[in-house]
């Protein structure tokens, strides 16, 4: 780890919404290339970055659509920059094509989705958490991805930096799955001094140009990276490829290539995942939540505890890869999981899969447009505790 470049760090206390906090998080993380397309409720990120970047040596470009934006941030990363784009549902759908290219080329980059109601145009100005499965499975083919979900502007700042660090470490596009509520919620945020911000440097190849193989994995299964233009004259492609980056159309190469893309994440889930747990000891019911829903659940959990119920709280800061082991472990100890999410059942399916019938999984659905009534979450907890 190194520390942040002070040039981009706006140290001090600020009163910012989540969107603006993401912009500052990106600046602090060292992001210097941004390509995006305006879309509610994410546009404020692009606006702030367009104002801030020229002063810190960053380059902002507004592309013609999200297909181009996603492609451009991959190109920017190969050019050596830390890059990012921001979008919401409809744009997220368009970005799935090149998100897959980013996975295949192993490009460190960050993509933020400020979720709104869908499908289609849905509810542009109102919250949802309904792109969670798309985040995991939206691009075609087999792959693993990393996705985090912040619940406050402070976390938008902090976890944007975490997203950049994870993307560098695992060489994979990392998703910050926000929602309109968190994006437009304004709170105090504290930006630390640059020397207190830890930054994961790019996994730069340090050997000679003759020895470089762009897709030869290191011990951690992640290959070394170089910049376009530094003498390596490498080839990279979205086709299934060998260690040289050259296309090979065979089942063996597919197994090696795609197998490694999946394994480099899957084998290190416990190292990647960030969870927040509270009062798990002896809990009968565990509320599993993420993003804004974890804050909405707080009064329901407190009320249930005041009523004498034993309720634990498990907050998924990292939603993907899913913390399977922890849910499996808890399933043997608790009666029920309660999963409030602003969709009609997505992450609850993962909880249910891992619980495998050993504990009940109770979804508290919400179709989107607003957050849950905490009464609904409370009733679900009560049902689970019986």
């Amino acid at each position, binding site marked *: 780890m190194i520390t942040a470049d002070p040039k981009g760090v706006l140290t001090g206390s600020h009163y910012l919404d989540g969107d603006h906090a993401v912009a500052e998080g990106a600046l602090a993380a060292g992001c210097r290339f941004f390509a995006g397309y305006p879309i509610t409720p994410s546009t404020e990120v692009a606006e702030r970055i367009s104002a801030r970047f*020229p002063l810190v040596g960053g380059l902002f470009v507004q592309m013609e659509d999200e297909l181009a934006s996603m*492609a451009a941030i991959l190109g920017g990363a190969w050019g050596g920059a830390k890059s990012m784009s921001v979008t919401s549902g409809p744009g997220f759908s368009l970005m799935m094509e090149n998100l897959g290219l980013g996975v295949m080329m192993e490009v460190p980059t960050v993509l933020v989705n400020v979720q709104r109601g869908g499908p289609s145009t849905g509810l542009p100005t109102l919250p949802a958490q309904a792109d969670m499965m798309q985040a995991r499975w939206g691009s075609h083919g087999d792959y693993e991805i990393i996705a985090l979900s912040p619940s406050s502007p402070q976390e938008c700042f902090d976890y944007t930096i975490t997203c950049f660090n994870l993307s560098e470490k695992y060489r994979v596009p990392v998703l910050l799955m926000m929602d309109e509520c968190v994006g437009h919620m304004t709170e105090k945020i504290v930006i630390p001094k640059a020397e207190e911000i830890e930054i994961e440097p790019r996994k730069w190849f340090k050997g000679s140009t003759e020895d470089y193989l762009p897709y030869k994995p290191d011990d951690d299964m992640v290959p070394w990276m170089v910049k*376009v233009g530094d003498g390596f004259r490498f080839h*990279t492609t979205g086709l299934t490829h060998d260690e040289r980056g050259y296309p090979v159309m065979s089942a063996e190469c597919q197994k090696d290539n795609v197998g490694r893309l999946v394994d480099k994440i899957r084998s290190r889930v416990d190292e990647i995942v960030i969870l927040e747990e509270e009062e798990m000891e002896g809990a009968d019911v565990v509320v599993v939540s993420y993003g804004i829903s974890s804050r909405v659940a707080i009064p329901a959990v407190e009320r249930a505890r005041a009523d004498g119920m034993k309720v634990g709280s498990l907050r998924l800061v990292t939603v993907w890869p899913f913390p399977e082991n922890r849910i499996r472990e808890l399933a043997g100890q608790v009666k029920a999981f309660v999963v409030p999410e602003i969709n009609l059942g997505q992450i609850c399916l993962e909880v249910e899969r891992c619980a495998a019938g050993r504990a009940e999984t109770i979804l508290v659905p919400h179709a989107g447009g607003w957050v849950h009534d905490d009464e609904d979450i409370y009733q679900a907890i009560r049902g689970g505790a019986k």
Partner: protein
Amino acid sequence: MSEAIEVARTYLRPGKKLPTVWCGGCGLGIIMSAMLRAIAAIGVDKNKVAVVSGIGCTGRMPTYVDFNTLHTTHGRGLAFATGVKLARPELTVIAAMGDGDALAIGGNHFIHACRRNIDMTAIVANNQIYGMTGGQYSPTTPHGKRGTTAPYGNIEYAFDTTALAVGAGATFVARSSVYHAREAGLLIEKAIRHKGFSVVEIISNCHTSYGRMNKFASPVAMLEWMRDNSVSIKAAEHMDADALEGKFTRGVMVESDKPEFIQSYDEMAERVATDPAAVANVKKVIQSYDAMADRLKPENG
């Protein structure tokens, strides 16, 4: 000939096995060598050249050339190249695209790249068909010609690539053909030297698909068609519409001077950093939320 061998030895990737994936007689080899001759003539360090492509037969071109090569998704080569160039402006960035790649699935990126005027070169290899997928009609298949998805003749109308590029604001636009291989190389050289976004369309032959379905007996017949049905821009000036019917023009259509994107961006950054009004404006953006917070403090009413 020795010059050609020298170019091949210098610029083809030593570790990459030939032959290419292209059919024998395909025009793409001629376009690739025209590009290499152009780079050789300019004398750019090959470490400082990036060739980006999308999908299709032309999409495979970067694999064989000894530069920094990035083979991306269908139609997105230019958008990806935009990122590479903006992150490393000192590089010579070339996007190699086919007609379907550049003008159908990537059509939006193409026109916006023309408008944005980033210093890159787009080479559009136009063989008037989707070759790799087996001969479906493309946005440049002439009206009435056949494709496997236009078995009774194409009822749509073709794009004029260079007119589209001119209309979209490209600052250098040229066209040649694989029959005119030397001219093609010289035009690509001019395009790369041009400061701003440049487009070179090279009319090519897909005898395997287009030729087979449209009564061209051989690759040679297709090259002869290019010879007989193209006119240099100079000659075209003295010809009327009837004489030009069914023919394409060759040469430089547009060569204009407009501030390049990165240059404009740098100038803007310089202005923002030094102009007091601009500095104040940026401060306002940064402080607007904090100012709101101040107003919300109880002591400020």
